[in-house]
């Protein structure tokens, strides 16, 4: 601000960075070391043997667990389906609630609002029963579908849409744009930053799912990376910790990549409205 370096601020920030980075670094460092060494509790901060282990876990995984590339694929598929599915459904429902006058509009709105109080963890048994009834246990659909409905995203989009000036809607009507055209040509592009920001959040949310996949997908072909790590640890007494750590590092990469790639949009979507 006044040109002088503010050392206090730098030190505080430095400590903060260290607190966040150290555990991650420890995981990375452990992944490159010998399994026996970690087993003896001699965990070093300095990376050891090399990166071969990554290739190994990617292609073969660990005893009793599918290769990590497959775990990543399932997780990626699940996170993408959840993020895209949630965005699609909530954009459409928010569009209906924000722009159209139909009977029971408010009732619909409050019903969606109400589901905020019913996350998957609360309704897990009935949801499981429903999925079982549809014969969707151990299927990819069963894995993703119950996680797609989203009140949060609907409410967020509703707010975004309500902030769009009426004149913009009216100008489009006068130009002859019907409801679907308006959605596609005006509303979605104008809300692009919000959609991108939400995508990041939802992708990470989907990626980190644990309880539901654990319950609904017992088939190892549908193991996500999170489940995979847990299985690696719980396999037997001789856990190969370097493999587990390497898998953990790999598990971190896609969400990080999504955040980094979409960072610009993310910040823009949360801070400014491009209207």
């Amino acid at each position, binding site marked *: 601000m006044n040109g002088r370096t503010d050392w206090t601020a730098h030190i505080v920030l430095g400590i903060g960075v260290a607190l966040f980075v150290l555990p991650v670094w420890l995981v990375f460092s452990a992944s490159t070391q010998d399994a026996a060494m970690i087993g003896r509790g001699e965990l070093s901060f300095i990376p050891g043997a090399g990166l071969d282990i990554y290739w190994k876990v990617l292609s073969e995984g660990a005893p009793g667990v599918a290769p990590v590339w497959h775990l990543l694929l399932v997780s990626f598929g699940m996170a993408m389906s959840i993020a895209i599915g949630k965005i699609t459904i909530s954009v459409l429902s928010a569009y209906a609630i924000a722009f159209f006058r139909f009977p029971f509009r408010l009732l619909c709105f409050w019903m969606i609002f109400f589901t905020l109080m019913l996350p998957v963890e609360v309704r897990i048994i009935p949801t499981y029963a429903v999925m079982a009834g549809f014969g969707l246990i151990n299927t990819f659909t069963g894995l993703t579908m119950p996680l797609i409905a989203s009140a949060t995203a609907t409410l967020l989009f509703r707010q975004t849409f309500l902030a769009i*000036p009426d*004149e*913009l809607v009216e*100008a*489009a*009507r*006068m130009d*002859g744009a019907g409801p679907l055209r308006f959605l596609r040509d005006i509303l979605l592009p*104008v809300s692009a930053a919000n959609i991108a920001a939400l995508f990041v959040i939802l992708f990470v949310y989907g990626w980190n799912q644990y309880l539901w996949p654990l319950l609904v997908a017992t088939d190892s072909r549908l193991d996500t990376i999170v489940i995979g790590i847990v299985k690696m640890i719980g396999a037997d007494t001789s856990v190969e910790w370097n493999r587990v750590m390497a898998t953990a590092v790999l598990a971190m990469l896609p969400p990080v990549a999504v955040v980094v790639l979409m960072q610009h949009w993310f910040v823009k979507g949360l801070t400014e409205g*491009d209207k």
Partner: protein
Amino acid sequence: MASLKLTNLRKSFGTTPVLHGIDLELASGEMLVIVGASGCGKSTLLRLVAGLEEPTAGAIELDGKNVANLDPAQRDIAMVFQNYALYPHMSVFDNMAYALKIRGLSKQDIATRVQETADMLGLGPLLARKPRQLSGGQRQRVAMGRAIVRHPKLFLFDEPLSNLDATLRVSMRAEIKRLQRRMAVTSLYVTHDQVEAMTLGDRLLVLHQGRAVQLATPMEVFERPANIYVAGFIGAPAMNFLPGALSHGGTAVTLDIGPVIPFADGKRPEPDGMKLTIGIRPEHVVANPAGLELQVDLLEPLGSETVIIGRLSDGTMLSVKLPKAEAPAERMNVGFPPAQLHVFDAATGLRLDPG
């Protein structure tokens, strides 16, 4: 290029009536300015014509066809919004091309028409820009261009200049008038600015509390306002009003403050003693050594002229517009030339003409 006819057009929001039956006929190519204070229903009237609101009753005929129940898109009407309402994510070109694209014109036709319109408005070099990269005046032009490029049957302007600064407003006003003449598109122009109303319109519709109080040419509205509201609304500074009564067999007014002024335009048939309100514009009040004494409260120099705001002996406020050199310091004596009086019935507020 179409004629527009409104018949008994009404609109209520819930139980609140906003428009109490508007009748209006516009010839093809005519520009009608709708003027009134905020809340008079002028924007609602425009939105009814546009199809953005549904009328409670009445007909809207465009070229003899009732469009009151049609979608905005089917009416072939273009509108310029107060805040421009440009699509923020589209370039100037796409903003202008959007309506044409929806109608399924070929890419080439669209390009030609947009280019033509852009050249006419001096937007040629800006076609690739986004709205946020434009100044207020340029956005205004794009909004105009978006309307013009469609070659609509009817133009609607909803206070299009009110977001611009004063200098720009004057030049855009001239430009709108020039464009409207050149394209000869029937237009409705809503404004609360009386200068815009006077300069732009072929005719003027003064709305007051949801009723059409006068529909006439701007000069006629200025010279022969239909009632006290119009008289006070059009003209700046506003017209002065003085109470009085009809006297001398309907040939003169006796002002409550004293003087008797004969009517220059003839005898009123109403009985003597009827309460009147006499209107006189500030620029018509003259200095007259034998006239009423005016205590000067405030001087507002406008450059070539000065507005004097003062009080008569009975406390009535009076404003006078005089050439600069004649402006007094503390007091002056004023006279009211008979030819410049506006006579209104004090009870109804309506203009009283010689019978």
